């Protein structure tokens, strides 16, 4: 926020999402699979805050319909899940990461086009670490900042994350995709309604 915004107490939300950096995953996914044995669980989601207005419902429904239409070609299926915090997870199921990325991008763009880019929270890609007994790993894309971070929940433990593994992955991912530099913003997403969580 600028000086004048502070002086007048104006809240500004980010009106633009940055889908451009989203596509970093398509190349990174190959490297992750061959070098690290990290593969997709076949689920990815775009997370946004639904507004209780007719206008927004219309735009969200349209986005979903478009996704279903293109999904018949690529084999992507869509499911809508609401979490306990009132956020909506539009979950895309597809064994191909590229198709997931394309789908997530489509939803982001239609929300952006409808003027609701500020409602997008993030996109989450569910992955599995085959070398670590198939432990779950989430790659989170902060759409407004255009940055990524890994989130590794400890399976079986209540709300515990594997910081060590996340830092290892940071080193692995750093050359592949733009990572969120401020680790304070590596927010956990507990109870994500995604496969493998």
């Amino acid at each position, binding site marked *: *926020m600028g000086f004048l915004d*502070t002086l007048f107490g104006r809240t500004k939300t980010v009106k633009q999402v940055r889908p451009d950096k989203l596509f970093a995953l398509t190349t990174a996914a190959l490297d992750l699979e061959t070098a690290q044995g990290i593969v997709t669980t076949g689920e990815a989601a775009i997370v946004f805050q639904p507004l209780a207005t007719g206008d927004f419902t219309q735009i969200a429904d349209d986005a979903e319909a478009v996704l279903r239409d293109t999904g018949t070609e690529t084999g992507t299926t869509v499911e809508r899940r609401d979490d*306990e915090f009132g956020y909506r997870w539009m979950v895309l199921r597809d064994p191909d990461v590229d198709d997931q990325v394309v789908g997530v991008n489509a939803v982001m763009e239609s929300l952006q086009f409808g003027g609701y880019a500020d409602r997008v929270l993030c996109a989450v890609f569910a992955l599995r670490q085959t070398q670590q007994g198939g432990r779950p790993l989430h790659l989170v894309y902060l759409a407004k900042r255009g940055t990524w971070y890994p989130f590794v929940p400890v399976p079986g433990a209540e*709300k515990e994350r594997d910081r060590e593994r996340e830092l290892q992955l940071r080193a692995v991912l750093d050359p592949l995709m733009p990572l969120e530099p401020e680790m304070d*913003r590596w*927010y956990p997403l507990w109870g994500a309604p995604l496969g493998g969580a």
Partner: protein
Amino acid sequence: MSRGASFGRDPGLQTRMVGTLFGLGLLYVVFAAVLFAAMRNAGGAIVICLVLLLFQFFTADKLALRSMHAHEVSPAQAPELHAMIDRLCLQADLPKPKVAIADDRMPNAFAVGRSQKSSTVCVTTGLLELLPPAELEGVLAHELAHVAHRDVLVMTVASFFASLAAMIMQNAFWFGGGNRDNRDNGPGLLAVVAVSALVYAVSFFLLRALSRYREFAADRGAAIVTGRPSALAAALVRISDGIARTPDQDLREVGPVQAFYILPPRAKKAVSSLFSTHPPTEKRIAALQRIEAQLQAGRTV
């Protein structure tokens, strides 16, 4: 940018805030001029006042938290609260503040801290018990909007000269030294104290007005970030009912941090609105209703 461009704008509020700031600025310029003229006698005392005020500025947040018996909580201790603040910070693109809980039955929340990074958002146990998740989220977003708007810093800077004036009034004798010899060179002690009193009195009302505008602005910010103005309005109703029902003895301890509360603890009807740090709840709800109307109209209003 057709949609969303005007949602959350309030030119009227901006105008009133500019007016208030202008009034304060004018007042302070006059006051500074008088002080400068009196500098020859009282330079040392003014420097001491400045140091004291700076000290206050750097310790105020800790004092406020301690006076509320608030303790910081880790994500493990309050997972839901942390998760909610995580999401709001993501949504508002803010660094995450510290989270504290005060063991108090009175439902309330406040934010302290000089900068966005060093701020703390505190809620009372009463608030956590009283509000359902969506309304709690609205209140937290309001406090985060205070953080985003740097309200503690703005109010501290805005009240700087008023605090100085108050100090000069209280410690008039400091400024008396060596006054006799060069009476002709500057205004006397009496004049400085009189001007200080006047500055304090006028700035008191201006600062209270500014504080009320900042509240409206924070409500608006919360509505923009959560997209649910009515949830915050519902929370305000519930909290003011809750405060009305809370026994009086709880209220005595809460004086110092009043300005940063979501609602003032003493909701006395008799107190004139001029003296209040917070706008009346009905007005805040009406303002939130207008935002809801804008939102429902597809944000094109």
